[in-house]
């Protein structure tokens, strides 16, 4: 059943460019990009239960390292892994430094790191162009071909992230992270090396985001610090995971798709009040749908079994 569903989704995504226009393709690319972000956040936030707001840091770092290497002549497809690598190295160092913090302190530390990075990028004008932003080399392809190129590249990255997530979820690492979420001291006691596990989860939550950032830079052709280090880049994946269902593999993807669909509706209809409507959605979600959409589904299945 689950396999069939997965196959259907893959086939749908593959045949979509045959009939979809560029708007649909752009929106779907965006959905896949945010699926990558929310699945990545899920490693540290969903499995290990650490409220990380570092997604924007990783995204921005990836975007800038990808963009800078492309400006210096690195081919586009190589620049994306460079973005992922830089983000992963940064996450490893940062993780070792701040993963001993818990709860709010961890959340604040990660929030503030993104702000500091943004300021550094903003003032390092020689390398990054500072507040003027950075222009990337333009691809010599026609618009339709470009849209499809980015669409399929993003699809590959999304599939890689899904595979990584389901691998972690089923293996020892995922089990250990869930233990850490429930009780870190107890997890430590039964022989889980919590430092290694948490740092691994943090690095995993960075590497794909870094690639996605570099991809984004090539996709939109121009980046500036306020755009790629924006705090909403950290918050939206969290909301998507909560919307889907945290600690699962399908949840974050479902959440990303539904959230972007809703956001698009809100954008269309409430141009000057979209942040407010978004806030309302978040409040409603936290109050009335604490287990996410998947929780709803499971609850229904459970009741159905009971009534038989």
């Amino acid at each position: 059943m689950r396999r069939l569903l997965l196959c259907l989704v893959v086939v749908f995504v593959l045949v979509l460019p045959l009939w979809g226009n560029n708007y649909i393709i752009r929106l779907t690319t965006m959905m896949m990009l945010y699926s990558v972000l929310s699945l990545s956040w899920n490693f540290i936030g969903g499995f290990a239960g650490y409220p990380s707001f570092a997604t924007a840091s990783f995204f921005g770092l990836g975007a800038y390292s990808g963009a800078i290497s492309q400006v210096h002549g690195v081919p586009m497809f190589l620049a994306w892994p460079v973005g992922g690598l830089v983000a992963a190295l940064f996450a490893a160092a940062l993780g070792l430094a701040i993963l001993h913090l818990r709860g709010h302190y961890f959340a604040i530390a990660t929030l503030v790191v993104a702000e500091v990075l943004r300021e550094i990028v903003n003032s390092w004008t020689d390398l990054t162009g500072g507040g003027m932003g950075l222009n990337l080399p333009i691809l010599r392809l026609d618009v339709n071909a470009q849209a499809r190129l980015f669409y399929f590249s993003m699809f590959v990255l999304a599939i890689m992230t899904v595979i990584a997530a389901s691998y972690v979820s089923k293996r020892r690492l995922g089990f250990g992270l869930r233990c850490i979420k429930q009780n870190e001291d107890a997890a430590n006691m039964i022989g889980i090396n919590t430092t290694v596990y948490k740092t691994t989860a943090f690095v995993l939550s960075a590497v794909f985001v870094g690639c996605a950032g570099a991809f984004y830079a090539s996709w939109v052709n121009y980046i500036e610090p306020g755009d790629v280090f924006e705090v909403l880049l950290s918050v939206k994946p969290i909301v998507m995971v909560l919307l889907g269902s945290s600690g699962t593999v399908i949840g974050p993807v479902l959440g990303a798709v539904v959230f972007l669909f809703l956001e698009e509706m809100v954008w269309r209809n409430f141009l000057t009040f979209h942040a407010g409507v978004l806030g309302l959605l978040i409040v409603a979600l936290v109050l009335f749908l604490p287990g996410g959409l998947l929780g709803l589904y499971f609850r229904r299945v459970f009741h159905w079994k009971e009534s038989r």
Partner: protein
Amino acid sequence: MLIAQIIVNGLVLGGLYACIASGFSLVWGVLNIINILHGSFIIIGSYVAYFAYNYLGIHPFLSVTIAAIVLFLFGYLIQAGIINRVVAAPVLTTLTLTFGLELLVNNSLLAAFKADYRKVILENPLGVIDMGGIIVPLDRLATMVLALILTGLLYWVLNASRIGRAIVAVRMDREAAALMGVKVKQIYAITFGLGAVMAGAAGSVMSVIFPISPLNNILFLGKAFVICVLGGLGSVPGAMIGGLALGMIESFGGLIFGPEHAMTLAFSLLILLLIFRPTGIIGKRGYQ
């Protein structure tokens, strides 16, 4: 002489920061909630002062009381009606919830007042005094003094009043306080209201110094974070020390690195402190 001037500037800023952070710190300490709304509360306070001065002619130092009442009601209702439903949930839930509320409130402010910067321009400013080369604008000095008085008032309420003792009791041990007959949910709502009062009061007094705009919310919130981590969590003296420390850091940092990097400096310091000394400068978590 320059150094003395900078110390004075730092102290004046610091008094205001203490007031900004004390309410934030109270909510964080007692409810274990990071109130992302705090920045917007400050801005609402500033708008109350602005409209009270321009339409009713009430001086911002007096309209503090109006701002306090408005924000207490607002804060109380938000906590009692919304946040109390999930107050015991994990960090992430409450953080996301207050973030959602912040988006809603801030967007409403933007829609109502636009993003223009406004300022309370006093008709009779108090002027400037020159103490042997150190120049102190009296309005700023008065703002600082008033902010410190308000912070002291919060300290007094927490220590001397019945409700204050109940708040401290809930912070120490929620279950035990409940067993002693403290209505915990109501205390939560009052605490959140008090936090909003401090924010609104700070916003109101500082409307004579700083421009007002809904877009300042992140700025104030960032400062509150830094002060809480600097001074340690959940105690009024901690917020006071943290506020004065941040004021000093910003004015000296502004001198050395340029004022545009003052906030980055504070944030970098915050990260270093979190890594090496997560309990703040004082080093213990206060219970009042």
